[in-house]
Structure formats: C-alpha cells, structure tokens
C-alpha cells in the first residue's frame, strides 16, 4: 500500500515536471517560473496536512524564501528591477513573522 502511494506520487510529480519541460511554446525563464510554482504547491500541501504546528511554521518559512526566488525570476524575465524591491521586503517580513511564530510556539508571549 505504501509502495503504491509512493509510486503514484512519483508518477504524478514526474508527469507535471515533464509537461513543464516539454510543452513547446514557453520560454526558458517561464519554465523555471512554473517549477517554482510547483514547489510552492508542495509547500501548501505541507501547510494543509502538517501533523503539528511546527510543520506548518517550517512550511511557511520555506514558502517565504521561495517567493523571494520567484520575484527574482520575474524580474529577469520582464527586465524591471522593482520586483527585487518586493523580494527584499518579503524576505524581511517573512523573517520577522517566523520569529514571532517561534515565540508563540515556545509558549512565551510577544513582549518577553
């Protein structure tokens, strides 16, 4: 049963990745963009299914760092530099949010 689930998931992921890599009319950076979107969907799965609260906090941290890379590829493919401003602001905001979540998980209040 476990092996069947593992194989099905592997086939599903391989199908999506090959569809992204083979489908003809996309440019190179847009393909990278779609793969990072797929990574974001995997993080959202972990946020949905995570057994404990710490799993969800880890997935939120990962999603924040992923979106920074997402903004970088967007800035490369459109040639505008203000997407990197969004990346800087998002990295800062995600860091502060994760530190607040860890304080909450340790059982302390925000003004300790």
């Amino acid at each position, binding site marked *: 049963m476990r092996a069947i689930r593992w194989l099905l998931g592997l086939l599903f992921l391989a199908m999506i990745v090959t569809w992204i890599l083979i489908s003809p009319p996309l440019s190179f950076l847009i393909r990278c963009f779609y793969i990072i979107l797929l990574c974001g969907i995997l993080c959202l799965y972990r946020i949905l299914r995570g057994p404990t609260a710490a799993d969800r906090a880890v997935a939120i941290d990962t999603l924040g760092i992923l979106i*920074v890379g997402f903004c970088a590829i967007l800035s490369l493919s459109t040639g505008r530099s203000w997407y990197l401003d969004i990346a800087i602001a998002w990295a800062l905001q995600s860091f502060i949010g994760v530190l607040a979540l860890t304080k909450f998980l340790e059982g302390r209040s925000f003004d300790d």
Partner: protein
Amino acid sequence: MIEIVKILHYAGYGFVVLGVLFDFFGCLGLIRLPDVYNRLQAATKCVTMGTCSIMFGVLLISGLGSQGIKAVFVIIFLILTAPTSAHALSRAAHIAGVPLCKRSVCDYYREDKVLRPEQMSAEEEKS
C-alpha cells in the same frame, strides 16, 4: 569584451537552473521526510542555497546595475537571516514537545536538559 559578457550571461543562466533544481529538491524533502527536524534540515538549507544561487545568477546576467545591487542585498540578507530562523524554529519545536521520528538515534538537547539543568538555565539567563 562581448565574449566576456556572453560567457557571464550563460553562467548566470546556469546558476538560475542550479537554484531552481535546489529549490525543487528542498520542497521534495519537505514533502517526503518523516519528522519536523528532518524536514527543517532539508527545506531550509536547500531552499536558502537555491534562492541565493538564483540571485547570483541575476547578478551575473544583469551586471552591477540596479538589479545586481539589489540581488547582492538579498543574498546578504538571506545568508544572515535564514539560519537564524531555522535555529529558532528547531528550538521552539523541541521546547513545544514535538516528538522525534521513531527511527532517530539520539537526542543531545534533551540529554543536556536532563543531565545538566543548572548549566542550561545559566546559559539561557546569559542569552
């Protein structure tokens, strides 16, 4: 001169592909591994390295213009903050009592807390 710019361009695209691969494998580890601590180890290191690699690719492709300077700032900021947040997350998960995976071998943090509680409390007061 044009040759150097072309070589830097291709190297930048190579770094972007490397970063996307690292991101993908990090998120695969976030799905597949059995435990909070293993997931944290896979996700944080791989995704930080991948995003820094994408940013280095942006720097190589666009040169030291406004994009390149901002990419350098993002690299410095990520290298400073991502290990901090990962350390805080693992410590918070251990204090909140998330159990380890059944196959894990040792837990040095709990041993330290059980065997030498005075030293641990002194260190916490110092920090």
